[in-house]
């Protein structure tokens, strides 16, 4: 019951003891540390790895690692939207693969019409790739809202369907050369995955833009608040006149579009599209979101936290490769870090609620 929330105490009886005040200050410091734990973990990682290898903390390696982070971060930002509503999207890796194949096919062999083969410019191809991702996301959303399929099941099914569709697209083959030709007017696909602006890879700029837009949408728009409300208490959201189904469909569309964008970046960097692109990437994306403090139950989390989570995973994986740790240990360490992060999340919640109680 609410008895623990006591009305403001009479001033005479309740001046806190100095000792208690000290404890509270300590608890506040601990809470601050826990809130920023992803950043703390990241700093610790950088300190550890740079003490092992002098190459770790060089400008070029930081840029490279950030570029590796970009793909997972973009996937994870999309997934965060879904998780904030209390859903889950397991299909993002497959959507990335599908949009990669669609874009790869358009660049490599064009689109066959009865009148002949048509090639699109790179910008149009990228747009089509993203639209494909968004459409698959919309199907996820419709399955979940109109047909009441549990998000886990709907997107698990879509994981297979989209991957199968990616394989069907080329009958299992790879589109090896996406350079395009001047004659077809479709050169320049490498821009988003290979090129740099001001010394920073375009992929990183894209991540920054996606993250910035996502931060604004989640914190500064009614739609963003509606996402949190749906995840926090769906029934209350309904009663507040929020079109819950529309919000849900929208987040799956966003997730699909982000996944497609990530797939395109990966494909551009690789210069080839193959159907297995981004297999199991959904798990890395979900891990980044959870690591960044997004609650799987919905209603709680931040985009910046997710981006930090992606940085931790990326900087950790690359660091382990850099210092030459074997694949098996890489898996073990990554898993341990994720579990540790979730444990500290629990600690944060407990500390926070006890502090709220003390100061209420």
């Amino acid at each position, binding site marked *: 019951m609410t008895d623990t929330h006591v009305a403001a105490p009479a001033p005479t009886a309740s001046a806190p003891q100095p000792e208690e005040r000290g404890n509270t200050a300590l608890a506040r410091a601990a809470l601050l540390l826990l809130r920023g734990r992803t950043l703390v973990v990241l700093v610790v990682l950088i300190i550890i790895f740079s003490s092992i290898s002098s190459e770790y903390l060089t400008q070029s390696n930081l840029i490279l690692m950030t570029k590796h982070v970009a793909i997972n971060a973009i996937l994870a930002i999309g997934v965060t939207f879904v998780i904030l509503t209390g859903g889950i999207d397991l299909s993002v890796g497959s959507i990335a693969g599908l949009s990669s194949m669609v874009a790869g096919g358009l660049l490599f062999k064009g689109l066959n019409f009865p009148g002949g083969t048509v090639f699109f410019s790179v910008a149009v191809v990228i747009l089509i790739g993203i639209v494909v991702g968004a459409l698959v996301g919309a199907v996820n959303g419709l399955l979940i809202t109109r047909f009441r399929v549990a998000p886990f099941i709907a997107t698990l099914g879509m994981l297979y369907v989209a991957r199968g569709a990616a394989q069907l697209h080329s009958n299992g083959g790879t589109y090896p050369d996406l350079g395009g030709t001047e004659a077809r007017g479709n050169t320049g696909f490498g821009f988003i995955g290979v090129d740099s602006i001001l010394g920073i890879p375009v992929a990183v700029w894209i991540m920054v833009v996606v993250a910035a837009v996502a931060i604004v949408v989640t914190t500064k728009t009614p739609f963003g608040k509606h996402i949190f409300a749906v995840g926090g208490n769906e029934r209350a959201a309904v009663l507040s006149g929020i079109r819950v189904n529309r919000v849900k469909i929208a987040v799956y569309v966003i997730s699909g579009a982000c996944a497609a964008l990530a797939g395109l970046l990966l494909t551009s960097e690789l210069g080839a599209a193959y159907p297995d692109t981004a297999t199991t990437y959904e798990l890395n994306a979900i891990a980044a979101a959870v690591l960044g403090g997004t609650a799987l139950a919905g209603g709680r989390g931040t985009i910046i936290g997710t981006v930090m989570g992606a940085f931790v995973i990326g900087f950790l994986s*690359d660091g382990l490769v850099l210092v030459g740790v074997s694949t098996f240990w890489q898996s073990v360490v990554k898993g341990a870090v994720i579990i540790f992060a979730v444990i500290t999340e629990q600690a944060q919640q407990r500390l926070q609620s006890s502090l709220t109680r003390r100061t209420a």
Partner: protein
Amino acid sequence: MKYLPSRRAFIAVGAASVLALAACGGGDDDASSSGGSSAAPAASKLIVIITPSPDNVFFKAEQDAAAAQAKSLGYETLVLSHDDDPTKQSQQFDTAISRKAAAIILDNAGADASVTAIQRAKDANIPTFLIDREINKTGVAVAQIVSNNAQGAGLGGQEFAKLMGNKGEYAELLGKPTDTNAGVRSKGYHGILDQYPDLKMVAQQSANWDQAEALQKTQTILQAHPNIKGIIAGNDTMALGAYAAVQAAKKDIIVVGFDGSPDVVSSIQKKAIKATVLQPASKIAQMAVDQADAYIKAGGKTDQPEKQSIDCVLVNADNADTVKDFAVAGS
């Protein structure tokens, strides 16, 4: 309830059929048998071809060659993919047994995990002809026709050492650690490379046969070891990923792969990747079908040894133009 159950059921069926469609994409063209009359009850004319996922062009070439050869010999075919999942492979064996296949051509999903399924087929009087990968038991399959990975890796290692001028730093990309061929190839490479004291391996990482993973790991390795002169990869998809990283870093680094896939062959023609080792996948698949045909016609006898090892061929700038579908002209 706002929605009728039938609508949900429709979606479920729809989704299931799409899934089914995706799963047997490879078998589509064979599904229509050449004529209803040929389905004789006793002596079946069906050859079941089971391979890993045709995502990898290597296995696709294998499938295509086996299916084409079987059809030319007058057989029906059923082409399946086990996606390296022994459980799925086992179920596909059940399918083959229940359809009373005349023979099974198999690129298996695990040296130990495949034995019982093959034994089950044998008990049902269906002979299995293994291609590409061996199993850890003899006397179960009729034939085990594999490319000589050790010999091939030796060829690759020699070419790599030659390209490197027998000295300098290099990195190795390993295949999936649980795959025997990953180990055999790495051992084959090192059998040669370790003889040169000036060739120094500075990094060794698994990229799980995957192109994107090879790209990212190579980028990181190049960060740690900027003086690397060469990268030797356990297969061609990883070589392609590694080469993409080399290109992005605007470096001139020797990359050598293994498999002889068309993408790498064309890369060699463009003077990008330097060499690969071609596994005669098409040839092996054709041999397996031929031997199966002979075995069936002889009423269950074979004059070939069970273990057959087919030598690999080195592909470099000299002979790349003659390579087509995992076969070098004249070999």
